[in-house]
């Protein structure tokens, strides 16, 4: 079974993130990058599915697919140290500034090359937070979309997931190949072991340029973007509110505020 996990390197959310003056794209250079948190759950799920397959005597391989600048190699290496078998790094200056539409196009091109039985993504990234990539990939690849999964079961070529909905969850089924996106709570991602970190150094990482992946340079990067930033600004800090200490009448004071604003 050929499992491909899509991994995005994102700026650490613990630091201040900014857009670049000029093109309004995310400044990825000034903040440390790390694996998008939800993608760690995707990696873990891929590893678990592969392990379960191997236990029943089947072949299974987990490939990490990442598109991003040179420093995304650190995140790829971390994913390999968790236990993935190999990686593909789509790396080309022409990709800088790609929006979700062109990212899904580029990743789909690479997936056609690698082949796949199962593609797993995190349900959204902490930088753009669009939550659309899995749906776009399913559309481009022409395979079922099993997104927002909090549980995945695979039996032969049948796949069942528990899809989180606004009011609970849906049970969803399809036949492989398919695209899955996972929410947190699906599992507890493992930490790389020392052995895993050492082994990762020897695992193959294939680097692909646009030309090698057969990607039209006009359809990606800033040139291929379908939206543009008109302007941006830091939000002015909220006007300081009233902070009071409870002197035994805290509940009454909160009620007074609520009443003054007509909430009660």
């Amino acid at each position: 079974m050929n499992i491909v996990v899509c991994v995005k390197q994102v700026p650490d959310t613990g630091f201040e993130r900014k857009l670049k003056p000029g093109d309004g794209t995310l400044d990825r250079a000034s903040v440390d990058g790390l694996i998008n948190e939800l993608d760690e759950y995707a990696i873990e799920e891929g590893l678990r599915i592969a392990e379960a397959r191997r236990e029943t005597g089947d072949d299974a391989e987990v490939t990490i697919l990442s598109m991003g600048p040179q420093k995304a190699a650190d995140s790829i290496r971390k994913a390999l140290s968790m236990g993935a078998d190999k990686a593909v790094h789509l790396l080309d200056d022409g990709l800088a500034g790609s929006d979700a539409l062109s990212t899904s196009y580029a990743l789909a091109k690479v997936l056609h090359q690698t082949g796949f039985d199962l593609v797993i993504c995190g349900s959204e990234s902490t930088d753009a937070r669009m939550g659309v990539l899995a749906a776009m990939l399913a559309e481009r690849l022409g395979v079922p979309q099993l997104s927002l999964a909090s549980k995945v079961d695979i039996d032969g070529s049948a796949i069942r997931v528990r899809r989180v909905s606004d009011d609970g969850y849906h049970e969803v089924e399809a036949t492989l190949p398919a695209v899955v996106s996972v929410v947190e709570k699906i599992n507890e991602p493992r930490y790389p072991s020392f052995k895993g970190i050492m082994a990762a150094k020897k695992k193959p990482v294939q680097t692909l340029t646009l030309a090698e992946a057969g990607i039209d340079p006009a359809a990606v990067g800033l040139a291929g973007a379908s939206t543009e930033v008109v302007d941006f600004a830091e939000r002015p800090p909220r006007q300081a509110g009233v902070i009071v200490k409870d002197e035994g009448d805290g509940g009454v004071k909160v009620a007074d505020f609520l009443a003054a604003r007509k909430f009660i």
Partner: protein
Amino acid sequence: MAEVLVLAEHTGGEVKKVTCELITLARRFGEPAVVWTGPGAQQGQPRCAEFGAARVYVAADAAFDDYVVAPTAALLAQLVTEKAPSLVLVAGTAEGKEVAGRLAVKTNSGLITDAVDLRPADGGDPVAEQSIFGGSTVVHSRVTRGTPIVAMRPNSVPAQAEPGPAELTPVSLTGQADGARITGRVVAERGERPELTEASIVVSGGRGTGGAEGFEIIEKLADAMGAAVGASRAVTDAGWYPHQFQVGQTGKTVSPQLYMAIGISGAIQHRAGMQTSKTIIAVNKDPEAPIFELADFGMVGDLFKVVPQLLDEIGRRSQL
């Protein structure tokens, strides 16, 4: 005047509030045309009319309820081709964004998600406002290719009534779109409370509640306020409250009229999910908690003293 397609969100025939907001918003750009998938259009029609829908395209086929997202995206793509709308609006819910994503691929059009406002620029083209990086930056952007598709964050634009005919117009999906099939639905217990992303008031509890038992006071306050219940990540990670109620970076993003953060310190992870709330009240015993930087009204104190007193006070005032 060109049409603006609005994808309706509804449960059975009950139109969600966000859909009324979107119909209101659509009037800024053209003639609002609601796209209704699945059964219940007859029942939902008066609500669409109340907010000014010119017509309601109804695709009642069961496939829309039975398959994940794909048929709805296919129907919208078909209507984009047939009706040449100037804009497509969807609710910025998880599923709404997925429909929008597939529609963007199908029509090779630009997509903007999580917009908190949408206004016509000088030429009339829509310019969206987004609040990014946990609310620290405000961005205006526009679509430069295809038919603009915008997913609006619920509670961003108030729904304002203005009657329209909302003429029911049957449409059907030509061709097949299926994919992943829904075989079961489980609705989580939330009693009579409003849905988290739709609610005008959200009462959220954090680590300060101390456990599942302590968290019950959050539910009580929510019920007294007619609010939805939210939780911080510390709470859902510890299993004190179900995951789907998590507000924050990896959970739901809410933008209610009033957000009450009870026993929540306000880490960036949490602020990312609630920073665009109109009014924020915080109760926390730590005066240094970052949530107080956002609060319009902050009470430094023990939530187990403040909230019970508040509940009594709400009860007493409602008797007056």
